[in-house]
């Protein structure tokens, strides 16, 4: 119970975010209209993904410095849940784009970059699945993890800012200011990021514990 406090905080924040995100006042903006609320649910997916990938690459480096099997398991599972967040982020983005940009896939640099970044991470799982030797698998995938993270950052954060993009915060478009992210929206958005990150950590912890048990049993 005492070790679980962060899970309860995550759950409470998530309930607050859903209630507040749907019912509190949101800025009245043309084109966006009521869909401005999607920000509370779409953007935290990406924040969650990047944070989970960051922890994943941390464990990958930790594994390379000191090959413990636990670091490898953690690295994979963080990447796994991070990818799940990313897929949800891209799907919510497509639905949102359909109503505000006119079609689900616009070939917008932000969308393309995010899709390529996800493919780079999917290749990570393909790589892991294709190597029989566990030691080799862990080492090679840890190296690839670093590459994947280094590719993801420019694909999502830098290239869309250098070119034309309709996505807020990119290509000369204002980020939060476009939504008039005043104190009202911040009050829900930041807790949403924290809540989904905590839920992500929780799912990772479940998967890691399962994998460690599995490893013990197969040994």
């Amino acid at each position, binding site marked *: 119970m005492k070790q*679980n406090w962060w*899970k309860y905080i995550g*759950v409470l924040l*998530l*309930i607050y975010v*859903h*209630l507040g995100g*749907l*019912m509190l006042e*949101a800025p*009245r*903006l*043309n084109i966006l*209209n*009521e869909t401005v609320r999607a920000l509370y649910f779409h953007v935290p997916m990406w924040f969650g993904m990047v944070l989970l990938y960051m922890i994943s690459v941390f464990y990958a480096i930790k594994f390379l410095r000191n090959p413990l099997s636990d670091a490898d398991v953690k690295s994979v599972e963080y990447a796994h849940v991070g990818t799940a967040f990313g897929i949800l982020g891209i799907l919510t983005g497509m639905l949102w784009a359909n109503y505000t940009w006119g079609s689900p896939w616009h070939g917008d640099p932000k969308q393309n970059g995010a899709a390529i970044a996800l493919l780079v991470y999917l290749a990570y799982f393909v790589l892991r699945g294709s190597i029989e030797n566990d030691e080799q698998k862990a080492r090679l995938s840890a190296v690839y993890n670093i590459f994947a993270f280094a590719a993801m950052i420019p694909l999502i954060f830098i290239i869309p800012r250098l070119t034309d993009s309709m996505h807020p915060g990119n290509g000369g478009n204002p980020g939060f200011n476009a939504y008039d992210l005043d104190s009202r929206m911040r009050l829900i958005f930041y807790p949403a990021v924290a809540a989904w990150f905590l*839920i992500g950590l*929780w*799912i990772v912890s*479940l998967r890691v*514990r*399962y994998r460690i*048990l599995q490893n*013990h*049993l197969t040994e």
Partner: protein
Amino acid sequence: MKRFLTLTILSLCSLVGYTQAAEVEMADTMRANGKIYVVVGIILIVLLGFIAYLFMLDRKLNRLEKEYKK
């Protein structure tokens, strides 16, 4: 005089119409008649179900870990 009055009334009407069109459309009716609570309720049920499921998985793993340590 009559013509002037109709003109003012009509122009006032058009002004009212103009400001209404300029106002951003939001789901105000849904909020006014309370149907928004149906949506909020449904989403909360799904969310709570998902969370309950996570807690159950957590408990299951706890039990397995204890069993393994024995």
